[in-house]
C-alpha cells in the first residue's frame, strides 16, 4: 500500500500497483497445483489474484477453498478471480464462489471475476448466480 505523505490529501493510492511490472495485483496463484506459497503475500496487500485452470470440480475445490481462505486472511480489499481459461466448472466450485462473495460483502471487500470464459458464464447462468457474482456476460470469452 502506498505510503501517505503527512500533509497529503490522498491517503490511499489506487495506482500504486502500477509500480510493479506487468502484474496489476499483489499475488498471482495458479490452481490446481500444489498449495501456493503465500509467504510472500504482504500483510497489507490490497488485492490478490487467483488464476483458475481449465477444469474446476469437486476434486480440486478443497484446494481452491484453502487458498481463498488464506488470501482472504491476508488481503484487505479485493480478490480478483481470472476465470478466462475455464472450460468446465461444477456446482461445488460455484457454491464456493457464492459463499466467498457473501463473505466478502459482509467484510466490505470486493470479489471480481475478470473476463470469465463463456463456459464459466454459462455455468453461473445455469445456477442462477451470474448476477450475484457480478459475472459480466458482455465482457466474457475474450481471453
Amino acid at each position, binding site marked *: 500500500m502506498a505510503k501517505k505523505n503527512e500533509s*497529503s*490529501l*490522498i491517503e490511499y*493510492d*489506487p*495506482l500504486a*500497483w*502500477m*509500480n510493479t511490472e*506487468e502484474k*496489476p495485483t499483489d499475488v498471482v496463484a495458479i490452481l490446481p497445483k500444489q498449495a501456493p506459497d503465500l509467504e510472500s503475500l504482504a500483510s497489507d496487500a490490497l488485492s490478490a489474484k487467483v488464476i483458475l485452470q481449465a477444469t474446476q470440480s469437486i476434486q480440486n475445490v478443497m484446494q481452491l477453498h484453502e487458498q481463498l481462505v488464506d488470501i482472504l486472511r491476508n488481503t484487505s480489499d479485493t480478490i480478483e478471480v481470472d476465470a478466462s481459461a475455464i472450460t468446465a466448472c461444477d456446482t461445488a466450485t460455484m457454491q464456493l464462489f457464492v459463499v466467498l462473495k457473501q463473505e466478502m460483502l459482509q467484510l466490505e471487500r470486493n470479489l471480481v471475476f*475478470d*473476463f470469465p470464459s*463463456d463456459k464459466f458464464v454459462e455455468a453461473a447462468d445455469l445456477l442462477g448466480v451470474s448476477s450475484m457474482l457480478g459475472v*459480466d*456476460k*458482455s*465482457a*466474457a*470469452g*475474450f*481471453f
Partner: protein
Amino acid sequence: MSVRIIAIINQKGGVGKTTTTANLTYALAKVGKKVTVIDFDPQGHLAISLGLFSKQHVGIDAVMLGEASLEEVIIPVRENLQLVPAGTKLQDIELLNDGGVQRGDLLRKALSNSLQDQDFVFIDCPPSSGLLVANVLFATEEILIPMASDFMALQGLSHLMETIRKFEKVLKKTYKTQLVISRYTASRRLSKEVVAKLQHYFPKQILATVIRETALLAECPSFGKTILEYRPSSPSARDFHDLASDFLIGKVM
C-alpha cells in the same frame, strides 16, 4: 501517412470524455486537420454536443452489424469535421452474447481500409467496460484518457489501466497512452495533488494544457456548439485551442 485512430476512453462517467472529444476534435479541424469523430456512446451525447439533436440517425451500429457502409452514415458537421453517430442499435451491441471473440472485432472491421483521407479518427467511448469498449481496444492503437482531478477519478483510472494491460497482453500490442487533465479546479489543493500523482505514474504522457472546470463548458452542448463557437474568446476556448496544439506537437507535462 495512414489515419490515426484515437480512443477517448475512461469507464468512469463525468470525467469529461464527450466535452474533450467535441472540443478537441473541432479545434483540430479548425487548424485544417481532417477529423472524423465516432459517437460510440449509446447515449449519443457527442452528436448532441455537435448540434445533432435527433437520435434517429443510422450510425456506427449499422456499420458494425453489416447493414450499412461507413460512407453512408457519415455526417459532415463542420468544415474538416465529420461525425459518425451512435445509432439506436448501439446499445444492443453492448449486450451481444453470441459470436465469441469475433464480437469484439466488429469496430475494427468496420473501420478497416476506411477514412484513409482523414488525419484523425477519434472515438468517444461510453462510460463502461463492456463489449463496446472491448471493440474500441481491438480497433485502436492510441488512447487518450480524460482525467478529472479528483480522487475517485484515480480509482477509476486504476481499473481502466488494469483493463488496458490485459488487452495489451492478449492482443500483443502496446497502446500509445496519453492523458488530458479535465475539469481542473486550480484553487483546490486536491486537484494539484491528483495531477502530481498522475505525473508520477504517467511521466511525459500528460498533455501540457489542463482543461479548467468552467460553467461555459457545461452550457455549450445545449446550443449544439463547441466552446470555440459558443464563447471563442473565453479561457475554456483557449484551453482547447492550446490542447489541440499540444496534441499535434506532443507537448506534455
